[in-house]
């Protein structure tokens, strides 16, 4: 396989973008990346998107989006894996370049969640319809069950959950593209409206519009497009049982561990080598479970990692310097690519007040459903 680099990135702000349509969001992010690299053609396009059909009644996003950026004729494919759609679009693009089949591939993600659809019902399509949704569960409800099981098994508290939100909003306050670039106190988080006990509103990522795109090429051609390419050192993907009830341990995200092991093996590095990480904090409990499963923090320390500052900017392993899904926003199909862009900018030293000094290796972990899909990428500054 050929070595692969990211040479350009584009991203819209995340938020309630009422003036922007699904196609317009995509075009803005894609054209920013294409312009940055100064390319006049693409060999392929991958569009990560969870549910254009349910959110805005639009499927068949491959050709639609290629056409919107003047690239009709180029092979263009929509990739769906619920909230992991963006990360898996990147992985698909990576293999297309690594295999030698293509030299210039756009990996993107887009979601338009604020256009009238009931987001709770649409997001629930990523759970098991027949065994879970039928009985009245919601996505926050599934993660609430994980949280309650974690509390029962490890003594994790509502305060531990709340510190994850406080920490990520502190980071997000430094991110001009974040949907909620503002800080919250511990008391505000702990007194926010209950959504699914023990999760409250400020433990949950918001409903967002947004798009993100990165351009991939073989590493040995990267200097044509940028002085500072970032290498994709490893990729790993895994699945787990779809229904939470079918997992041996509801507190443990085994797909996250398995996808991470595969990415670490491919990259030839371990969790201790990682300088900065973006993990899938769709709910506060998921950041705790993910940093455990990724091996970034020992299980005994994971619940307290945000409170103790271990995962904050300036801590041993800063997690979600972008503000995470919680503060930056979570346009589900775009999230996986937005995570990659945060790591790409960190490794290029472009993160401003969020910069992790000297970051050389970064990890991004993107998850679908209640953990039925997970994809991990490890990037390297070269």
């Amino acid at each position, binding site marked *: 396989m050929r070595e692969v680099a990211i040479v350009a990135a584009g991203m819209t702000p995340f938020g309630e973008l009422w003036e922007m349509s699904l196609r317009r969001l995509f075009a803005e992010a894609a054209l920013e990346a294409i312009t940055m690299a100064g390319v006049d053609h693409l060999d392929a396009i991958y569009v990560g998107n969870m549910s254009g059909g349910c959110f805005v009644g639009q499927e068949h996003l491959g050709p639609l989006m290629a056409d919107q950026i003047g690239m009709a004729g180029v092979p263009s494919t929509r990739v769906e894996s619920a909230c992991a759609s963006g990360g898996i679009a990147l992985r698909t693009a990576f293999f297309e370049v690594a295999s030698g089949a293509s030299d210039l591939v756009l990996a993107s993600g887009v979601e338009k969640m604020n256009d009238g659809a*009931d987001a*709770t*019902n649409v997001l*629930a399509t990523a759970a098991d319809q*027949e*065994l*879970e*949704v*039928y*009985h*009245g*569960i*919601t996505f*926050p*409800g599934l993660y*609430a*069950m*994980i949280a*309650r*099981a974690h509390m*029962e098994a490890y003594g994790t508290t509502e305060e531990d959950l709340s510190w994850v939100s406080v920490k990520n909003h502190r980071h997000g306050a430094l991110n001009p593209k974040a949907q909620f670039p503002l800080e919250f106190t511990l008391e505000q988080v702990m007194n926010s*409206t*209950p*959504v*699914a*006990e*023990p*999760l409250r509103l400020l433990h949950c990522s918001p409903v967002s519009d947004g798009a993100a795109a990165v351009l991939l090429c073989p590493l040995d051609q990267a200097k044509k497009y940028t002085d500072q390419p970032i290498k994709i050192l490893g990729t790993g993907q895994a699945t787990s*049982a779809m*229904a*939470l*009830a*079918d997992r041996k341990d*509801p507190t443990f995200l085994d797909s996250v561990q398995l996808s991470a092991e595969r990415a670490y093996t491919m990259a030839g590095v371990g969790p201790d080598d990682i300088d900065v990480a973006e993990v899938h904090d769709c709910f506060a409990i998921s950041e705790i479970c993910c940093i455990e499963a990724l091996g970034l923090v020992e299980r005994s320390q994971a619940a307290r990692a945000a409170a103790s500052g271990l995962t904050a900017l300036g801590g041993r392993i800063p997690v979600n310097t972008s503000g995470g899904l919680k503060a930056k926003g979570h346009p589900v199909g775009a999230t996986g690519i937005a995570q990659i862009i945060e790591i790409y900018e960190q490794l290029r030293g472009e993160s401003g007040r969020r910069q992790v000094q000297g970051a050389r290796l970064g990890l991004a972990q993107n998850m679908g459903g209640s953990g039925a899909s997970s994809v991990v990428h490890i990037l390297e500054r070269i």
Partner: protein
Amino acid sequence: MPSPRYWREVPSRLRLEAARCSGCGKVNYPPRPICPGCRGKESEPVTLSKTATIITSTVIHIAPDDFLFEAPYAIAIVETPEGARFMAQVVECDPSSVGPGMDVSLEFRLIRKEARSGILCYGFKAVPTASWEAQS
């Protein structure tokens, strides 16, 4: 949702029919053509007991459309004595009293009325057992 979808699910959803894998003994609910535990293809039918224990739970405050008027309600992953785990609402109790370790009985109930078609959707809900209530 079209009605054949509910009809197909009648044996498992309304009669609690499961399958015990002849290879590894795992009880799969609903039955599948291949055991996710050992990939065995042979199994024997087993009907689940109508008692269970709660593994984990939550109380839904922000509910899907079809359940809007029921919120807040408790919902849990329960495990039957056969080892089958599945999701069920927990009713006839204070939702905030529901938690891991609670013993429940499974009772045949209306789950919801489908908004678009008006189809009545049945299944099992969990009710805390009298002995559990006496303990607590």
